[in-house]
């Protein structure tokens, strides 16, 4: 941790944050928000939390920026003109967030110093994870072992939350009965109809297989290096979004249609829960992977935990990949699956 770099990044983050809420053009705000996410990613890297940085880069700077673009594309690009009483609401909002921020700031003085060895966080569980992970699970990346094994329950419900988010978008936009084309200006529609850029399409065709290969590497190599199901899944989903942007929505939907997508999303959570139940059936606790050595060939109790983590990560990756696609497809086409960006 180098405090000079920290100060620099934090200053830029504050500037980006202020700019993102003050700029009138919402597309510009989305771009600035992407830059904000990328700076957060740099900050995580600088603090040594590489897994978090990876997630922030993939989700925050990558996919969520695209989702913002899609939402802006489907709604309005400008902030609404002055409404009566806007100043009052703004003042109230400022008061509320100021109070809340003040309370949080006050509470943060009770926190232990950054990386304080005597703090509860680094004196109870962390030493166990840091010293025993290799012996207990044979996984070098502690983050993965904590995420998928020691705290497997948490991660299972995180995956379920991702699934729920996708289903909520699906219910609101696809089944909500508002499948209108939305306000798209005629000129843009005409441009889109005539828009066939061979350079972008060629490069996309060339890059997408490598993106997907890299995503599989991230999923499978999450035990040894930063990465895992969430990051790999987001990269896989992003490769399909790239196809949908550079060709059209139909092209991506031909690869994975809605029915297959929903099936895969549920399969992912099912794989995770199924591995948990398998442990129950074999007589251990829920998600206690070590018992799986009885049915996995040529593994002992330690290797079984490592292998089960891989299975769980694959489940997470499936769900995340498909949910990212579903959210993009629905937002960009307002639930009609007709036309994309």
């Amino acid at each position: 941790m180098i405090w000079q770099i920290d100060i620099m990044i934090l200053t830029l983050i504050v500037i980006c944050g202020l700019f993102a809420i003050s700029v009138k053009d919402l597309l510009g705000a989305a771009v600035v928000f992407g830059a904000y996410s990328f700076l957060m990613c740099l900050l995580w890297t600088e603090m040594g939390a590489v897994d978090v940085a990876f997630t922030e880069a993939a989700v925050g700077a990558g996919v969520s920026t695209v989702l913002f673009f899609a939402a802006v594309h489907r709604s309005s690009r400008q902030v609404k003109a002055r409404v009566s009483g806007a100043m009052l609401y703004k003042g109230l909002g400022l008061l509320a967030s100021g109070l809340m921020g003040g309370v949080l700031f006050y509470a943060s003085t009770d926190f232990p110093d950054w990386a304080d060895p005597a703090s509860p966080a680094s004196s109870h569980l962390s030493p166990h994870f840091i010293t025993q992970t290799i012996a207990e699970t044979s996984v070098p990346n502690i983050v993965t072992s904590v995420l998928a094994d020691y705290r497997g329950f948490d991660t299972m419900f995180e995956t379920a939350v991702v699934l729920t988010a996708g289903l909520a978008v699906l219910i609101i936009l696809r089944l909500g009965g508002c499948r209108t084309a939305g306000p798209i200006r005629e000129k843009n529609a005409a441009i889109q109809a005539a828009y066939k850029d061979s350079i972008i399409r060629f490069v996309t065709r060339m890059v997408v297989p490598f993106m997907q290969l890299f995503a599989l590497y991230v999923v499978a190599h999450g035990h040894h290096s930063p990465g895992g199901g969430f990051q790999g899944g987001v990269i896989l989903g992003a490769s399909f979004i790239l196809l949908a942007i550079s060709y059209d929505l139909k092209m991506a939907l031909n690869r994975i249609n809605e029915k297959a997508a929903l099936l895969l999303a549920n399969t992912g959570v099912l794989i995770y829960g199924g591995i948990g139940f398998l442990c129950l059936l074999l007589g251990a606790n829920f998600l206690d992977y070590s018992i799986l050595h009885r049915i996995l060939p040529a593994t002992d109790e330690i290797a079984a935990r490592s292998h089960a983590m891989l299975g769980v990560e694959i489940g997470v990756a499936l769900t995340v990949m498909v949910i990212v696609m579903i959210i993009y497809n629905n937002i960009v086409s307002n639930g009609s699956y007709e036309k994309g960006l």
Partner: protein
Amino acid sequence: MINTLTIALMIAGLFFFLATTVGVLRFPDFYTRMHAAGKGDTLSSLLILVGLALYNLHLLSAGNILVTIKILFILMFIFLASPTATHAIIDAGYESGIKPWANENNREGQDDLAD
């Protein structure tokens, strides 16, 4: 030897980054700015990455060579993606009718884009 090469490459990369920044700030319109950003950014990233890849080889071991190869993969990706992204942005600007800059005496080509 490797150190000298690395320093030379990094300084060249930083120089082109500086030139890019100056270009983005000083050029008169969207197209010329994107031209500066796209070209300078790609070249300087490539130079700096090559420098890092070389620097990584000062201790030859299988792990370091693997990291160098990974950096070269990133380099390939930037080499493909950055110019394409620049092209896409400029194309989008052209489609939405941004007029290129011209000085007082030379208005040729301006009318092509007038709707």
